[in-house]
């Protein structure tokens, strides 16, 4: 490939450049202009430290900030009011919780959630004071206990109406090899102590040999304000294997029902006025027919309102109890030191792989963000420096 030689090129370039005459006094004008201005020490602030270690420290700081941000975002509870905790049979479970005081369920439960029994199914409708037979009791009337068990006033909504919230929850408890009856008795005591009652219970009691596990379900109605404390007490009875809590704001629905009832009552009042002035049989029958229709609508809406009142006054907590059917097998013979070491080694390796898989997604996301940040930052930095110079 032909290329022009270097020495002749130097010669002709120097000669061509020498043909451009230098203006007299141009350098002096620059010197004079330069003497009037101060150096812009602050105009080119160096946000990137000089030196390799300084830049490494900057990158490390960016990594820490990005990872912290991702962790914070990951740990922020979502807007849904529902909180769920599920614990596996032998794995510690963690979850996010806003209303539930603790977020960790203790491990170690190996009892099935519900095991159908073959004998002794008992469902009864006895009072709340007889929980051992399974109970369904009526709600206590207001002020019956005479203790401060009334729900605390809820915050006022934007329409001037106290906020109406329907809270429901469910919790699964594993009792291990403990008997079912004491747990049922304690649950009943917790509900009544909080000003609530046992709305429904269904127990399946296995034979006394213990080969078939017992299980049962209790539905507790407790005042809204006492829901959290009841939940805490219930959790202490056994091992939590699953827990769900849901809160639904029904204030809008409540206000709507009230408004419709008020409107219908106003209409009824007008029809009553018309009825008092009616003279003919036909008019009276016609107005009466309208009044009957309106009255039935009012009663239907009032029923819905009462239901909402009941649901918002009392929270519903469904407790499932389960008992282990078999004693745990006796522990195997203690392995030798080498066997134990091998077992720990395998377990550690598995845990390491699990940890790697668990953090891989988040790490990739952080690295992707950092790569984009680095490319854009580098481009902007170079463009800015070029523009400044």
């Amino acid at each position, binding site marked *: 490939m032909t290329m022009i*030689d270097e020495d002749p090129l130097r010669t*002709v370039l120097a000669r061509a450049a020498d043909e451009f005459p230098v203006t007299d006094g141009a350098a002096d*004008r*620059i010197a004079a202009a330069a003497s009037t201005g101060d150096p812009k020490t602050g105009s080119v602030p160096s946000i990137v430290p000089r030196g390799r270690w300084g830049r490494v420290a900057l990158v490390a700081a960016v990594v820490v900030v990005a990872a912290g941000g991702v962790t914070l975002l990951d740990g922020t509870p979502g807007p849904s009011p529902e909180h769920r905790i599920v614990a596996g049979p032998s794995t510690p479970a963690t979850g996010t919780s806003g209303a539930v005081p603790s977020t960790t369920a203790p491990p170690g439960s190996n009892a099935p959630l519900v095991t159908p029994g073959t004998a002794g199914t008992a469902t009864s409708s006895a009072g709340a004071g007889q929980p051992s037979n399974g109970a369904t009791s009526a709600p206590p009337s207001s002020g019956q206990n005479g203790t401060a068990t009334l729900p605390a006033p809820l915050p006022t909504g934007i329409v001037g109406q106290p906020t109406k919230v329907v809270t429901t929850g469910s919790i699964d408890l594993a009792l291990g090899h403990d008997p079912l009856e004491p747990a049922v008795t304690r649950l009943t005591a917790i509900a009544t102590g909080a000003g609530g009652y046992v709305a429904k219970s269904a127990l399946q009691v296995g034979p006394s040999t213990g080969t078939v596990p017992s299980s049962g379900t209790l539905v507790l109605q407790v005042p809204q304000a006492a829901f959290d404390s009841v939940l805490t007490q219930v959790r202490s009875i056994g091992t939590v294997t699953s827990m769900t809590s849901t809160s639904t704001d029904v204030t809008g629905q409540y206000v709507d029902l009230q408004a419709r009832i008020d409107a219908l009552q106003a209409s009824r009042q007008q029809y009553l006025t018309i009825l008092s002035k009616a003279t003919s049989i036909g008019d009276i029958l016609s107005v009466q027919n309208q009044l009957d229709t309106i009255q039935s609508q009012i009663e239907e809406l009032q029923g819905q309102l009462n239901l909402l009142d009941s649901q918002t006054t009392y929270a519903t907590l469904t407790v499932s109890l389960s008992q282990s059917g078999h004693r745990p097998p006796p522990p195997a013979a203690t392995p030798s030191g080498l066997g134990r070491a091998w077992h720990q080694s395998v377990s550690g390796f598995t845990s390491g792989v699990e940890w790697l898989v668990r953090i891989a997604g988040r790490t990739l996301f952080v690295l992707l963000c950092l790569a984009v940040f680095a490319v854009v930052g580098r481009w902007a930095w170079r463009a800015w420096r070029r523009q400044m110079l």
Partner: protein
Amino acid sequence: MRAPEGVTGVGGKGTQEDIEVWLAEGYVTSFRTACLILGNRADAEEAVQEAFLRAWRFRTSLAPGSDVRPWLYRVVVNTCNSKLRSEIPHRDRRAGDGDLDRLAASGDDPAHVDQSGDVVRALQSLAVHLRVVIVLRYYADLSEREIATAIGRRPGTVKSRLHEARRQLALHPALRSLDEQAGHTDSEVAE
């Protein structure tokens, strides 16, 4: 002048004497470098004035003890690029040809003047990034590493651009017989 003496002052606060030293050692070469890049004397004068003032204002960004020369050429080259991008394209491009015409009409040796005009036209036919490296290397006499610093690219990029620029210049009709003319000039100088 083959190579500038080099503005080897150090970055720092600077005094009036320092800027005068910069100008005394580097103004003429910087100005003619800008002339070869822009092909226009008035634009080159503006560019170099602006470049020196910028460099003087931001002299504190230089690390103490570093060589000013490649950094100063970087400022000059960037100022020229800025003019080529933003100002000169919107102007009548015949202004540059006017300078070349004046070169031809000056009272120097007609052979040299004709050749100089051809050289400047050949340079203007190159792409800007090639023109810059060829002028910095063979007029300002910067090393490839210094050119890399001046244009903010890698030395390998500089080398490939120089290669391409020399190849294109060799194909230019005005410089095709440059070796013979250079030989003729050398004999004249010997006489």
